[in-house]
């Protein structure tokens, strides 16, 4: 008899392992076995776990009787199409529960470009980076993913390969029962390669709930540059723990944008960047606009291992209704990481009567010649500004929409893809006007 999923997670995770088809490569098999051991050793996070103090993950895991789902059922192309970004000229990758749907995808082709299912690329040269990001080891849900993932998207750009258009990845999550789904992705940009990648996700069913525990590793090698946008505008029947673990090498640039918009009730984003080389640039931008009972937790970690690196983190939140926000910004500057510049800012608009934010900077600095700063604000609209707008005939809702747009403009202005920028500005206005 198969144990219920949550019980299996806590009592007999081996039983779950049996449900995952045995991977072909033995090296991977070994990694999975170790990850499972590690998961069993760490256990699920609880409110006592430092990194999960404000997010009761167990409550969300128990919320529905999930089943571990490792397969994909055919989904109509209209589902992915619903997340298309108007006017965006891009390649498209459609994944269903992590499995690549070649017939619905338009993949980039050409010299230096490798893109396809993880399962088909376990022997590709870049796959050597799999599971190497140092922070994954401490995160039990990431270990669970490593142990049990079915498939995901592998991208490798050879040295000097520059993608001419953005890739838009649409993650479709689809199941006939409440499902726990664990995609696993690895993107490697080799020396001086460059790409723009946009992610969206969709869960079309309304009667059943999907919980995604996805892990993405990105490796930005020497002098490479990755623009990475993640748009979380999910359904009420979706829950997500989204882990992005990046590694950067010398002279590389990584620009991460995370947008969390309604209506997914629970979102936890783990974002961590390990700097393995000097003279890197990292920009972490986040915008969360949450309403109703949404719980949005952004957990970020900038790991300054090497000297002469710059990181800039700006997370902004608009919390409406009863929405609950959590922000953690950990910056670790190792003793060797002299001449580090690391800046962090978290600003919030608390607009709902029961809206709430827990924000904690965690700066650990072991080098002496560094520039680091952090800041936090939480406030409401200025009454003066609201009155000014209303005195010009602008209704209260439209005035709020303008103000929220204004609040988020330093993030949306930094978006380098005009169609995406326009799309998000419109989405923000629409959320505020409802």
């Amino acid at each position, binding site marked *: 008899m198969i144990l219920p999923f949550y019980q299996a997670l806590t009592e007999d995770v081996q039983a779950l392992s049996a449900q995952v088809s045995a991977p072909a490569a033995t090296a991977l098999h070994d990694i999975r076995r170790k990850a499972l051991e590690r998961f069993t050793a760490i256990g699920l996070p609880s409110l006592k776990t430092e990194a999960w103090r404000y997010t009761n993950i167990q409550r969300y895991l128990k919320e529905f009787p999930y089943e571990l789902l490792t397969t994909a059922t055919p989904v109509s192309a209209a589902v992915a199409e619903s997340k298309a970004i108007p006017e965006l000229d891009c390649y498209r990758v459609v994944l269903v529960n992590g499995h690549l749907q070649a017939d619905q995808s338009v993949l980039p082709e050409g010299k230096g470009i490798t893109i396809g299912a993880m399962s088909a690329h376990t022997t590709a040269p870049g796959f050597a980076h799999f599971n190497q990001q140092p922070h994954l080891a401490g995160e039990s849900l990431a270990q669970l993913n490593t142990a049990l993932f079915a498939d995901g998207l592998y991208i490798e750009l050879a040295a000097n390969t520059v993608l001419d258009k953005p890739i838009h990845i649409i993650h479709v999550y689809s199941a006939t029962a409440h499902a726990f789904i664990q995609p696993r992705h690895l993107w490697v940009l080799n020396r001086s390669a460059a790409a723009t990648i946009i992610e969206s996700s969709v869960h079309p069913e309304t009667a059943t709930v999907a919980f995604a525990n996805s892990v993405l590793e990105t490796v930005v090698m020497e002098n490479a540059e990755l623009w990475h946008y993640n748009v979380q505008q999910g359904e009420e029947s979706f829950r997500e723990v989204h882990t992005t673990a990046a590694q950067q090498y010398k002279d590389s640039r990584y620009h991460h944008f995370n947008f969390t918009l309604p209506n997914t009730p629970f979102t936890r984003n783990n974002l961590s960047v390990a700097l393995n080389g000097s003279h890197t640039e990292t920009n972490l931008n986040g915008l969360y606009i949450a309403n109703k009972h949404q719980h949005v937790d952004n957990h970020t970690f900038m790991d300054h291992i090497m000297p002469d690196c710059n990181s800039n983190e700006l997370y902004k939140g608009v919390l409406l209704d009863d929405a609950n926000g959590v922000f953690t910004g950990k910056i670790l500057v190792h003793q060797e990481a002299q001449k580090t510049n690391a800046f962090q800012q978290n600003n919030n608009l608390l607009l709902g009567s029961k809206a709430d934010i827990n924000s904690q900077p965690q700066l650990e600095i072991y080098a002496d010649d560094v520039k680091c700063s952090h800041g936090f604000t939480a406030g409401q609209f*200025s*009454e*003066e*500004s609201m*009155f*000014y*707008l*209303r*005195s*010009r*005939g*602008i*209704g*209260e809702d*439209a*005035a709020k929409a*303008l*103000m929220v*747009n*204004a*609040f*988020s*403009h*330093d993030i949306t202005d930094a978006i380098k893809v005009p169609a995406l920028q326009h799309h998000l500005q419109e989405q923000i206005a629409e959320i505020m006007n409802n």
Partner: protein
Amino acid sequence: MLTIKNLHAEVEGKKILKGINLEINKGEMHAIMGPNGSGKSSLASVLAGRDNYTVTEGEVWFNGKNLLDLAPEDRAREGVFLAFQYPVEIPGVSNLNFLKTALNEIRAYKGLPALEAREFLKLTKEKQQLVDFHSNLMNRSLNEGFSGGEKKRNEIFQLAMLDPQLAILDETDSGLDIDALRIVSNGVNKLRDAEKSFVVITHYQRLLEYIIPDFVHVLYNGRIIKTGTKELALELEERGYDWLKEELHLKESV
């Protein structure tokens, strides 16, 4: 068009307006003068609907509607416009987007369709010229980093764009150099017609040489203590307000 009857208002428990009576008809230009702190901006704020003021007594009728019942945006949509003494800066809201939103909200209220982009731009160009408002300010954030004069010009530019029936200009002339004053006054004069009325609040008679008022009122300690024509402004400029106080005491004691 506008009838103010025995208007009393307070802010944070402090009585500021103490029985204002004023009748403004179509096409008229009224000037309100008065010493600092006498309640001029407060009167403008109460008319525009700033909610930290509480009206404790009196009525305000605008084209047959009880103005005090309306939300600030509805007063604007009905045709009341206030040019602020201190326009606020709103970083991140572009001037252009702000105006388009305002204009279309007012049009929607009147049952008109939103302006097409082309028509909007045409209107913008036309009105920009009226007050010599530089187009590079259009794409900037609303009033952010504008000079004092640019902010005031922006108020008049908005006035021209939104085309209200009643415009209240609160010290729009203060801090303007003579060239800017001329531009702003010319703009206002071009907007004047038989259907529109203006209330200009000012400390300086100088403005009233460009914008000739039909009436000049003196607001003192929350009341209009004297009403006259443009000659009254000259007299105030020369003699200050003290003689008026004396005259008033005289009258009251008689």
